[in-house]
């Protein structure tokens, strides 16, 4: 190992390979020692304090209700189910937030570089305002601003008497699947698979023959068409529950909570300010020559942006964008401030209080966020790898 190409012996401690191994060995040992130390201590301390641990509490009856549940849930459900409900709510608002923040962020970031003075300044102001004010304050602002603007349930704004907007949220008709509906989701799945297969085929075909298929139209047709046909063939097994004002509130229909809207707005607008800065730096990293070349080809501005600038800026943008997505997801836990029932609110909030199993619950919460984050980074890394330039 320490033989050099020229054959003479090298002092062991000067050999870079040897050094590397020693350093790494020390690092590994230190890490193992630290983890061992923490584990041993925690065990001893838990023992000494007589604190019982375990995940048995997940099977106990929760006994409290949650205002927004994407799956069946009632006070009789278990804490385990509470966990799932909270998790789904977190995922919902995060997903919505990520989409909108990305859209606003790109728009503002691009606008900041616009030759239109007013637009550029407004975009700059947007960034400087929303980036520099604590998110909590912004969430509260949007929540109460949103609420303030809306009428009470009895004076609801209505659209065709089937959609209602009021201070309690947006109420829309709720589709109720009847028997036989189950075929439609399967058909949707088939449609998506078919569309992906078509995409792969089309790409191959294009490489081989140079001919392209209109894959977007065909794909959309497959994804929408197949389920639609199946839906109609099975006799349209769907019924709508129309909301109705009864007493205090609307019954029937699905309700979109104002908490969700406010949180979604606040998260999107706040994160978009950060994304805008990232997009700006990304675009500025694309060499000016690229835009000039596009101009020389007389490509219109929008095409230049979409086909030439943005794809190249993505290399710089994507890693930082990942961080912002993770931040958004984690920031969604500020939901507790306005009563949106996310994971932190219902699980490491209410459940923790009811059961007192802090260690387990905090550990589970951390694990969940960690998992979400790792999945997001993994996806973004895949995308990042695709944006990397093909070079020699």
């Amino acid at each position, binding site marked *: 190992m320490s033989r050099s190409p020229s054959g003479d012996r090298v002092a062991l401690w000067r050999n870079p390979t040897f050094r590397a191994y020693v350093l790494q060995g020390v690092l590994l040992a230190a890490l193992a020692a630290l983890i061992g130390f923490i584990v041993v201590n925690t065990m001893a301390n838990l023992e000494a304090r007589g604190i*019982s641990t375990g995940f048995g509490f997940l099977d106990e009856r929760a006994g409290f209700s949650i205002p927004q549940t994407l799956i069946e849930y009632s006070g009789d459900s278990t804490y385990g189910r509470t966990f799932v409900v909270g998790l789904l709510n977190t995922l919902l608002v995060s997903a919505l937030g990520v989409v909108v923040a990305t859209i606003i962020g790109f728009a503002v970031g691009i606008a900041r570089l616009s030759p239109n003075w007013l637009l550029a300044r407004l975009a700059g102001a947007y960034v400087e305002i929303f980036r520099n004010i604590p998110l909590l304050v912004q969430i509260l602002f949007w929540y109460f601003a949103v609420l303030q603007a809306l009428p009470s349930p009895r004076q609801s704004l209505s659209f065709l008497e089937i959609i209602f907007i009021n201070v309690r949220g947006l109420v829309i008709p709720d589709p109720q699947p009847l028997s036989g509906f189950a075929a439609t989701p399967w058909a949707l799945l088939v449609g998506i698979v078919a569309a992906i297969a078509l995409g792969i085929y089309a790409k191959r075909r294009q490489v081989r023959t140079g001919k392209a298929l209109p894959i977007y139209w065909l794909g959309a047709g497959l994804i929408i068409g197949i389920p639609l046909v199946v839906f109609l063939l099975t006799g349209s097994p769907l019924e709508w529950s129309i909301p109705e004002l009864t007493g205090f509130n609307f019954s029937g229909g699905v309700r979109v909570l104002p908490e969700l809207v406010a949180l979604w707005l606040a998260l999107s607008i706040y994160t978009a300010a950060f994304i805008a800065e990232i997009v700006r730096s990304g675009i500025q990293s694309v060499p000016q020559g690229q835009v000039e070349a596009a101009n020389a080809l007389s490509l219109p501005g929008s095409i230049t942006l979409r086909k030439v600038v943005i794809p190249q800026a993505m290399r710089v943008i994507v890693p930082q964008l990942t961080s912002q997505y993770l931040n958004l997801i984690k920031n969604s836990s500020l939901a507790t401030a306005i009563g949106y029932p996310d994971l932190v609110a219902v699980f490491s909030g209410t459940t923790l209080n009811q059961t007192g199993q802090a260690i387990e619950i905090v550990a589970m919460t951390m694990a969940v966020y960690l998992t979400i984050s790792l999945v997001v980074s993994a996806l973004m890394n895949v995308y990042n790898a695709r944006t990397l330039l093909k070079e020699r």
Partner: protein
Amino acid sequence: ATLDDVKERGSLNCGVNVGLAGFSSPDSDGNWQGLDVETCRGIAAAIFGDPEKVEFTPLTAKERFTALQSGEIDVLSRNTTWTATRDNSLGLNFTVTTFYDGQGFMVDKDLGIESLEDLDGASICIQSGTTHELNLADYFPSRDIDINTVTFDTPDQTAQGFAHGRCDVLTSDTSQLSALRLQLPEPDSVEILETLISKEPLGPVVRQGDDQWLDIVQWSIFAMINAEEMGVNSDNVDEMRDNPPNPGVARLLGDDGNYGEQLGLSDDWAYNIIKGVGNYGEVFTATVGEDSPLGIKRGLNALWNEGGILYAPPIR
């Protein structure tokens, strides 16, 4: 043992609420104030003879039990409801109820609500991390009343939600309702319903397995209640000690017997409490009662012989 740790450290670590009007909140100089806070000061006075030898650790609802379990604090005095689970399965012991509360409801006067049955279909604003959510889930479904809960993190956010019309009803401990009402733009437009749906006995908590420490906390509070019953207050305590009007006062203030020593404290422990923070009545009046903006009536928290249920074991 906890007492030794506390003595060695020279101060008591007491977990309190981050901010709850009347129970614990820091004033602009950082002096903690409120009923829960005075309880801690009383305990510190009993141990050290000095009510200021206490460090307050503000805790959120989520942290409170863990902080006590892990030893971050010696006693948790943070409007915590005494329930079987908490007492039995968390390795904790509740000591004495310092405040008898119950969950009540506040509604807009205009709605004309008279009983809880009228609340069918209503939205209810509630603060998370309390027993309130469980109480609602116990009470309404069993009576076939349909309600929607909207859960907030802190009391003032709950009040804001109610004020902005997010819900028809605000529910909380009655002690809180009066405070929350003051935060509304028009406090007179709402009313607090008579009906209470739960028992909420609030009191300090200690770790299980240290009986001496449990006794000290318990008896510090008993001393405050007994003092009120005997008419001993911070103004007259010196005089009472010098000329005890009766043997009960003499035992309380350490003129007779060695009750302090039995606890591991000095015999003038109760004197120190009353000298330092006053008797229960004084504390109540100043923090949540008539002399405070909250103006809560004594109600259940009056002495047993004055129409309430406050009843401390005798010192003898």
